[in-house]
Every structure is written in structure tokens, then in C-alpha cells.
């Protein structure tokens, strides 16, 4: 429909102004800050000096940065793969009509609905050295010594990934389930007449038909998982010794624990570059899917 542009512009103005001033401008501002020697005092006084790429050099020489980058990749990939597998299997379970289905479906959404501080605190207890999981495994005789799920350098990031998989079940389930509902029933019926077993139907009908939904869920999962901050901050705060940091928590701790805003924003600029790269890549993948 055609319309008077000026009048219509006023409908867009509030939202565009908000995201330009408080969304786009800050990430451009990050680039500016990352080239300066910014701490809280130099920022408030306006005396932060330009330092060229010194912040980037410091970051790239920092072992913890590389560890955080490694963790972010591991965390994102493992989370997505397992979230999608669990979500898919769960969606298969729900792909029938059965008593109380609606109620159960609402229950599956609970991990998404619980505030992250609540689920994070729970897992901090559940996974602690003398927490529920160790006490349980010990009681049933599977382990003698407690496993230090979140207190050693080796295990912490994988335990956090496990928790994040649980957090992602609702969204992955609901997206894949909705996708499954779109597959025409006749396909299954005619396959049944041809003698296909249940699993054959899943392999030859459900999976190929679901492909666009799987791709969309994967792309969305990458973006959402790359954003994760709070889970790690609440459960380990990046510890022990900064070895379970993601890029997000690493940059936050540089800013708010050490007040090194220059270095912190250098990490943020690297993160932003990854997001932009991912958008370019994923729009290509999704374009080829069509």
C-alpha cells in the first residue's frame, strides 16, 4: 500500500531511534573505545588517550582470551548439536495424540521460563563437589570420589555446556515440533502402506521434510548460544582461574572486575566481528536452501 511517507515515518521513528542510539551507536562506540586507554577514571574525566592497537595486542597475548575463544566455540557447537538432538527426539515423542499432551507440552517449557538466576544457582548446587549429583552417584555406587564438575579447569566448561543443553531443550523442542506438525500426514500413511517401519518413516520422511526447519533452528541456536553470559557468570563466574570464561563473561570481567574498558571493548569488537561474519555466512546458507 502507498502512504504519506512523512506520517508513516513517525510510526517507525521511536523504535529506530531507540535501536540506533542505544543499540547501534554503542557497538560503533566499542570500536572507538577499544583504541583508547580507557578505565573508569580516564573515561569520566575524558582523558583516555589513543593507544592504537595496544589493547588488541594485549588481548591476543593473553592466554585467557584464547581459552575464552576456545570455550565459546566448544560451548556453542556442543550445545547446539545436543540441544537439537534432544529437542528432535522429544518432538518425536510428542508427534502423536495422547492423553494430557497439552499439559506435558507446557511443562517442557519450564526450563525456558525459569529465571536464569534460579536455574544457575540450582546447578551450582547440583554440580558442586558435595552437591546432589556427586552424592547421588556415590550413593548408587557409580563413583567413590566426588567428580569435580565445576571446580577444575578441565571439566568446568563441559559441565556448563551440559547445563546449557538442558536450558535449550524447550526452544529446540518447540521449533522442531512445530516444524513436524507441518509435514502432511498422507506421506506417513502411504509409506505405511508400502511397509515402512516407524524409524524408516523418521529417516526417510521426517528428517528430509524437516530440513529447512533444522537449518533455521541451527542458525538461531548459534546466535542465541553465542550470546550466553549469565549462566557462566552465575555458576562459575569464569573460574577456576578464568578457565571457564566465554568471550562474553571474559569481556565483562575485564570491564567490571578490572575496569579495563579498553581491553574489554577490544574483546567486544572481536565478538561483533564474529557475529557479522556469521550473519553473512548464514544468509548465504539460508539463501542456498531456498
Amino acid at each position, binding site marked *: 500500500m502507498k502512504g504519506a511517507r512523512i506520517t508513516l515515518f513517525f*510510526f517507525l521513528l521511536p523504535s529506530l531511534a531507540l535501536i540506533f542510539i542505544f543499540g547501534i551507536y554503542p557497538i560503533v562506540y566499542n570500536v572507538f573505545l577499544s583504541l583508547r586507554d580507557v578505565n573508569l577514571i580516564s573515561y569520566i574525566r575524558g582523558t583516555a588517550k589513543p593507544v592504537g592497537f595496544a589493547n588488541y595486542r594485549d588481548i591476543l597475548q593473553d592466554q585467557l582470551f584464547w581459552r575464552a575463544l576456545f570455550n565459546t566455540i566448544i560451548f556453542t557447537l556442543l550445545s547446539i548439536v545436543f540441544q537439537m538432538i534432544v529437542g528432535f527426539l522429544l518432538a518425536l515423542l510428542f508427534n502423536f495424540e495422547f492423553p494430557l499432551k497439552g499439559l506435558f507440552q507446557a511443562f517442557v517449557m519450564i526450563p525456558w521460563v525459569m529465571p536464569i*538466576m534460579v536455574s544457575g544457582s540450582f546447578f551450582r548446587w547440583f554440580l558442586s563437589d*558435595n552437591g546432589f549429583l556427586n*552424592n547421588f552417584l556415590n550413593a548408587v555406587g557409580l563413583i567413590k570420589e566426588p567428580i569435580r564438575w565445576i571446580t577444575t579447569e578441565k571439566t568446568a566448561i563441559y559441565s556448563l555446556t551440559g547445563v546449557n543443553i538442558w536450558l535449550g531443550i524447550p526452544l529446540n523442542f518447540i521449533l522442531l515440533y512445530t516444524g513436524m506438525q507441518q509435514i502432511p500426514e498422507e506421506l506417513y500413511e502411504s509409506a505405511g502402506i508400502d511397509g515402512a517401519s516407524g524409524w524408516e518413516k523418521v529417516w526417510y520422511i521426517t528428517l528430509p521434510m524437516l530440513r529447512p526447519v533444522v537449518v533455521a533452528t541451527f542458525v538461531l541456536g548459534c546466535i542465541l548460544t553465542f550470546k550466553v*553470559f549469565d549462566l557462566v557468570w552465575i555458576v562459575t563466574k569464569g573460574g577456576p582461574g578464568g578457565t571457564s570464561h566465554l568471550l562474553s563473561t571474559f569481556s565483562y570481567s575485564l570491564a567490571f572486575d578490572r575496569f579495563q574498558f579498553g581491553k574489554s571493548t577490544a574483546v567486544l569488537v572481536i565478538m*561483533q566481528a564474529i*557475529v557479522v561474519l556469521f550473519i553473512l555466512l548464514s544468509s548465504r546458507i539460508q539463501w542456498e536452501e531456498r
Partner: protein
Amino acid sequence: MRKKRGWKWSILVAGVVALIVSPLYFIAIGGFMSTEEIFYKPPYFFPPRPSFQYYREAFVTLLPYLKNSFIIAFGTLLLTLAIALPAPFVLTKFRFPAKGLWSFLFAFVQMLPYAAVVIPLFLMFTRLRLINSYSGVILALSVFLVPFAVIILRSYMVAVPSGLIEAALIDGAGYFKIFTSIFLPLSAPGIASVAILVFLLAWGNFIVPLAFIKEESMRPVSIGLYVFIGQYGVQWNKLMAGSMIYTIPPLVVALLAGKSIVAGLTAGAFKE
């Protein structure tokens, strides 16, 4: 219609679902137990000597934080809807220059890591004196939630019949009139769904109040729960009781409006 399965299937599904929601159960019973009982080996699956004391104490402690959470969640809900609602009217119903670009920008801001926006905003807000204020937190949350809302609303509002709007334009109705008396009422289910999602996300958000509110008396529950995580050890029973109290509002919303939540989330994810 999908194939039917009987109660046996329900029991299987119930088992799987119980596993998924078990954390909430253990939080709920943890609030009735002493710290020794919470860490008892072998672990308790039911509180052995349930005491209501921790829930009562946690509630009294959390009351001011709950008030702050409600202020922040409802403030964010109002601001986000006020800013987001008009945008899809133009984006779905009219020709407008660079529409694709504007739509992309909403998606783009939604994809940004929270930290990448929160840290520079902290510096900006320090200058603007928006640290330690409800308005700062509400504004920052809206930055993330407005794009989220616009994207979901757009997928609902596409369905409003364009013919009605055209007819009203021919009858001489103004844009604002059409927006308020045709467009919004016809998008009611979508608006309800978005309102619920925005409330839940604002209620549960952690990083924004963590960065922007240093003043204890203004903190929402997400950060307020740290009062039970002292420097000399955690009061686990009160932390769990408090966590449960904090979870009740979103839980009630989810169980009453589960369908809306699901519809909103899928609309936002797929319809680009």
C-alpha cells in the same frame, strides 16, 4: 490427524518430562530443608522434616526486591510495547523506502551479544546519570526487547487484512485512527503473546540489572538473590526458597498462557 497413543505413551512422556523439570522440584523441596539435609548423602528426594521457616524468611527478605522486579518488568513491558507496536504497521502494510534495511536492523540488534551493548551503555549511562535508576534498566532492556517484539509482531500483523485499511483510507480516516481502531484490535492475540514474552524476559533478565544497579535497595530479585550467597558461604535453603518464590509469577504465566508463549516464540523464529 496424528496417530493416537494411549495412557502407556503418556506415562513414558511423563517420565521424560519429569526428568526435564526435576530441577524445579529440587529447588522447591530444598526450601523446606536444612542446609545439612540439602547436602545429605545419599540425597533426599523428599524433605525429611519439612520446615516452612526458610520460605517465610526468604519471602520477608525478598519483598523489596520483588517490588523492584515488578517495577522493572512492567516498566519494560509498557515502554517496549509503546515503542514497538507502531513499527510493524508500516513494515507490514505500506510501501516505505529501505523497508528491508529497517527490518534487517531489528534482527541485527537482536543478534548482538548482551555484553557488547551493556558494557558501552554502562559508560554512556554513567555520563547520562542513568546508573542506579529504574529508567536506565528499563531503557536498556527495551533495547533488546523492542527488536524482539517487532519481529514477532510483524509476523502476526501481516495477517491483518490490507483491504480494511485501504477502505478506511478511502473513507478519509487518518493513519493514527486506523492504527488504533483497526490495526491494533485485529492484532490483539499477537500483542498478548508478545506482552507475555516481554514480561517473562524482563522479569528474568540478569545482566542488565547486574551492570546498571549497584544500589542494593533498587535491585530486582535476579540480583537480590545474591543476599543469600554471602562472602562466608551460601544459605542454600533460603536461596532455594527465594528462587522458588521468584519463579512463581513466570510459572503461573507459563501454565496459564503456554499456548501464547509457544505461538510467539515460533512466530519470532521462523517468519523472517
